[in-house]
């Protein structure tokens, strides 16, 4: 668990982060979202002390981050940035092995871990381990960047706009991969983005920041239904908030037993996508099936619409 207490950062007379307190739960993805200049990156960097706080403190699993030298702290915390930051003079395998090397792991253990990570990110070790970063596509570089951040099995992973440089299709794939990886390794992830869609898609909890302050820190649905102020409401999208709300629930979650007419929809599809599919087919309901195609029940338009408004 990460506990941020009254954390502030001032540069001269300018306050970049203003007395932020929040708790990040273990094994979750927490997203900090805000416009540029909102202080979100600075807040993230104060967690691994790339930026030293002016006041306040950060506790990771109850331990003050200032109780050890900054570079030793950072070896226990994964860090991935926009544009990956891979070392161009080192191979993919050497890049991933950076932190394990710093920690003095045995070559055998490093080799096994590198291979495991490459496979987890769908990169064949035999083909990719010896390649140099410039020989990879943008999406592959990004995956290697995240693999490198996870190499030493950190319990916490910090990500600063990790998908910012990717095109929409690869970006969407990278987001899915991150969700998979998080489930697989159980890492606690704190991710910074300016993209509210990304925040809603990835975050179990989302902190909305503006001018150095956290305006609201809540579950995505709560941000939509109970925004703390008009700025949060504007940032989370007033015009399509009902549709955003629908996108937070999956068809499988509200499917009721029995069958009805209409198109077939995967249980993992969001209500937003389900509604779109039903509209497209001019139907009133849909069949929900799981990933193996077995029926899971049915879904009516009325049931979907009931989820598109605050309770």
């Amino acid at each position, binding site marked *: 668990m990460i506990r941020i207490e009254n954390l502030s950062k001032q540069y001269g007379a300018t306050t970049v982060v203003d007395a932020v307190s929040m708790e990040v739960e273990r094994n979750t993805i927490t997203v900090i979202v805000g416009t540029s200049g909102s202080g979100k990156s600075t807040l993230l960097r104060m967690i691994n002390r790339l930026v030293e706080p002016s006041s306040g403190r950060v506790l990771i699993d109850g331990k003050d981050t200032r109780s050890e030298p900054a*570079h030793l702290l950072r070896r226990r915390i994964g860090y991935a940035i926009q544009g990956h930051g891979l070392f*161009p003079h080192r191979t993919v395998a050497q890049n991933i092995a950076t932190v394990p090397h710093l920690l003095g792991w045995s070559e055998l253990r490093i080799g096994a871990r590198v291979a495991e990570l490459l496979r987890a990110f769908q990169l064949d070790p035999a083909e990719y381990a010896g390649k140099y970063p410039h020989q990879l596509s943008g999406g592959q570089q990004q995956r290697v960047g995240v693999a490198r951040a996870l190499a030493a099995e950190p319990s916490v992973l910090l990500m600063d706009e990790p998908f910012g440089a990717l095109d929409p299709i690869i970006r969407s794939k990278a987001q899915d991969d991150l969700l998979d990886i998080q489930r697989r390794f159980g890492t606690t992830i704190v991710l910074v983005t300016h993209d509210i869609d990304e925040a809603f898609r990835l975050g179990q909890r989302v902190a909305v920041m503006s001018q150095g302050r956290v305006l609201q820190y809540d579950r995505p649905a709560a941000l939509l239904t109970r925004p703390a102020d008009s700025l949060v409401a504007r940032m989370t999208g007033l015009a399509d908030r009902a549709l955003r709300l629908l996108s937070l629930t999956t068809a499988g979650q509200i499917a009721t037993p029995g069958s009805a007419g209409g198109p077939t929809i995967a249980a993992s599809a969001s209500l937003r996508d389900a509604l779109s599919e039903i509209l497209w087919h001019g139907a009133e309901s849909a069949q929900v099936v799981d990933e193996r195609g077995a029926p899971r029940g049915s879904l009516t338009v009325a049931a979907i619409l009931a989820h598109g408004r605050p309770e």
Partner: protein
Amino acid sequence: MPRAATLLRVAALGLLAAFLLRPQAFAALFAPLTQYGAPPIYDQGNLLTLTLAHLATVCAAAVASTIVAVGLGILVTRQSGAEFLPLSRALVNIGQTFPPVAVLAVAVPLVGFGVKPTLIALFAYGLLPIFENTIAGLQGCTSELLEAASGMGMSARQRLLEVELPMAMPLILEGVRLSLVISVGTATIGSTVAARGLGEVIIAGLLSSNTAFILQGGLVTGLMAVLLYDAMGLVERRVCRAAHVA
């Protein structure tokens, strides 16, 4: 590398080696340049020993320039040393603009005749290219890369040794290469203050109006410069390939 260029290099090296080991074999070639039966081949010392002494002086000065210039370059690119950049740059520039002959004139009263004043002159003259290339190389590391290195948990020292210097290495070597080549030619003036080297051959030729001597000294120096330049190029390419930075 094209085949023809490789052949040319091997031929140049062979020619230099042949001339230094058996200079008398080339006597007929240089005879037309002498008058009144003067010796066509330098006979006041062994050409091979002079060449090796010349090379040793150049290399010793280059090693010293490299250590000091790279060290200074690292210092002034650190946050704590940034304020020394203008001062260091001025000093190194003076080393380059102050003519080596003048350095000799100033150094001889202080350290006496021989190889010492020559080393000082070559050292000062060779700093600039290495220093500027070191700075350019180190500043060429993007802030993104440095942040990644720090974010991984590298200490300042590890960041320098494992990321910044390997990234800057091709440019640093290019600076050393330039400095070496300039030094090979410049070192001939050392003979005016009694340093052993190929300058002796040229000066002997000038004093006795023996064009053959002048030409021999000049040719050996020139060939050495060209071959050194190529050899450093090979080293650079190897390092670049290993580092995968162009």
